[in-house]
């Protein structure tokens, strides 16, 4: 093998390690110290540690790497303040869909999660909140019946406790393997947000790469404040489908955060380094005077 090939193998291995992080941690106990990741945008290579310390933002070009649900929770919540709820909920093969059981099992193993949505109560700069995070490493963060149920629960708990609700979305949309049952989760989550809204609750919706399909077309678009991370793909239809439909190439930057901001669908784009501080400030500014 020449040097180039070795490098390529190393990058592949690191990709595998990253993808199966939780699995490797559990089976091997430790992560290789010099585990590296390559920035898909500027192609610079960093150590895993270096990236983690920078909230998984590329130190050289600012590209936002994908984050796991717990990495986000660590980044947003005051230390030790997160209490996860409904952590044990697992999906069932509601339509007897071929391969779905296997897909679920693999997703669990690779991500170390029971489902794509993790939520609980926490404090953000000492303020109480309910935080929910979709993790795209679990079947593309897709919304099936359990994800829909957990999202609705997180909304209802925020309403009951009168806490602000902060949800980080990252999703390919509705979960295909649960068919029309998944589709109905759009109605479930959107109507739960509507009730929360009526009750005077504050919902800060944060769209990360990617937020598409049925997730964008339901609760995620209904925030009092809608924030996106830089460069995130945000759209109802996927770019491939649009290109096939209209028979032309889409322009550079189409359906990215900056494009959505320009078209009036976001309040702001906030990079990860400033996310916690911005959310905390928004929470304090939106506190109801009583």
């Amino acid at each position, binding site marked *: 093998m020449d040097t180039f090939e070795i490098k390529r193998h190393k990058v592949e291995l690191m990709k595998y390690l990253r993808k199966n992080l939780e699995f490797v941690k559990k089976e091997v106990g430790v992560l290789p110290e010099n585990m590296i990741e390559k920035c898909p945008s500027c192609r610079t290579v960093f150590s895993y540690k270096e990236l983690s310390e920078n909230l998984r933002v590329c130190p050289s070009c600012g590209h936002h790497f994908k984050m796991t649900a717990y990495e986000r929770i660590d980044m947003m919540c005051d230390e030790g303040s997160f209490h996860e709820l409904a952590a044990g909920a697992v999906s069932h093969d509601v339509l007897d869909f071929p391969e779905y059981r296997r897909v679920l099992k693999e997703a669990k193993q690779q991500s170390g999660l029971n489902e794509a949505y993790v939520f609980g109560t926490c404090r953000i700069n000492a303020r109480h909140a309910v935080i929910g995070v979709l993790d795209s490493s679990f079947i593309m963060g897709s919304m099936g019946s359990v994800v829909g149920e957990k999202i609705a629960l997180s909304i209802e708990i925020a309403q009951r406790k009168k806490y602000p609700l902060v949800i980080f979305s990252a999703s390919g949309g509705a979960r295909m393997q649960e068919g029309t049952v998944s589709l109905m989760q759009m*109605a479930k989550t*959107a109507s739960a947000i*509507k009730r929360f809204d009526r009750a005077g609750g504050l919902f800060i919706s944060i769209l990360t790469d990617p937020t*598409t399909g049925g997730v964008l077309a*339901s609760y995620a678009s209904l925030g009092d404040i809608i924030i996106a991370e830089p460069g995130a793909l945000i759209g*109802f239809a996927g770019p491939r489908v649009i290109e096939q439909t209209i028979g032309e190439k889409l322009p550079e930057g*189409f359906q990215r955060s900056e494009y959505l901001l320009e078209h*009036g669908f976001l309040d702001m784009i906030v990079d990860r380094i400033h996310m916690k501080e911005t959310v905390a400030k928004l929470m304090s500014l939106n506190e109801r005077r009583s």
Partner: protein
Amino acid sequence: MAQLSAYEKLGLARRNDRPRTMDYIDQMFSDFIELKGDRCYGDDPAVVGGIAFYKGIPVTVLGNRRGKNVEENLRFNFGMPNPEGYRKSQRLARQAEKFGRPVICFIDTPGAYPGKGAEERGQGQAIAENIALFSDLSVPVVSIVIGEGGSGGALAFGAADSVLMMENAVYEILSPEGFASILWRNSSLASRACRLMKPTAQDLKELGIIDEIVSEPPGGAHTDPRAAIKNADRAVYGHVTRLLKEDPDALVENRYRKYRRIDGRRRQMQHT
């Protein structure tokens, strides 16, 4: 008819000679007046909306509009709404609430239009707002899937107190072609996808997603459109009159509970 496969039903649902929203409107209502425009950007020909008398009751009517031939289909964008359609629907639904009119929706779309302009003008946001608004309306909402109900584009009109389906209609997460293309990167596996997706009225009744199946004449609605629409009329009227007796707060609460419950478990519809 029960022996037809899901894919065969999809074929029936897509037939050009199948009765469409305008046929239902013409036969079921009197004095229909179409109301156009979203007061924001434009009027979406793929969504028809208006007010009419329904056996003496003033109602707001919304529906997906599809053509019966190529020219009409081009005009109505094959029934695929743009954000303007969903915003028009929001405007008319708010008006319905203001004047205490029940809302009746006819669902018949392969999905929201996946176009460049549609994305630019916020297709996802328009659908989300539509669902949220419908979930909270203090007037009865009855929706009926008369042909193909595809994806969030169809669900936008489907957050209703009662959801009915014609016997051979399908209601799906995505068109089977799109589904096969996403899962297996091969759109020609549509017939397999269609079977696995369980999109028929019978499947969805069993899953507790719809409330009633409306029977079609033998051979399908196109063999005797008048008879098919008459069946739909009888069923829809039953739901509208029942719901009109309910207290507005109870209506909204029950609608919420109804969607809150859907979790994929098979159940007898002992409660609605």
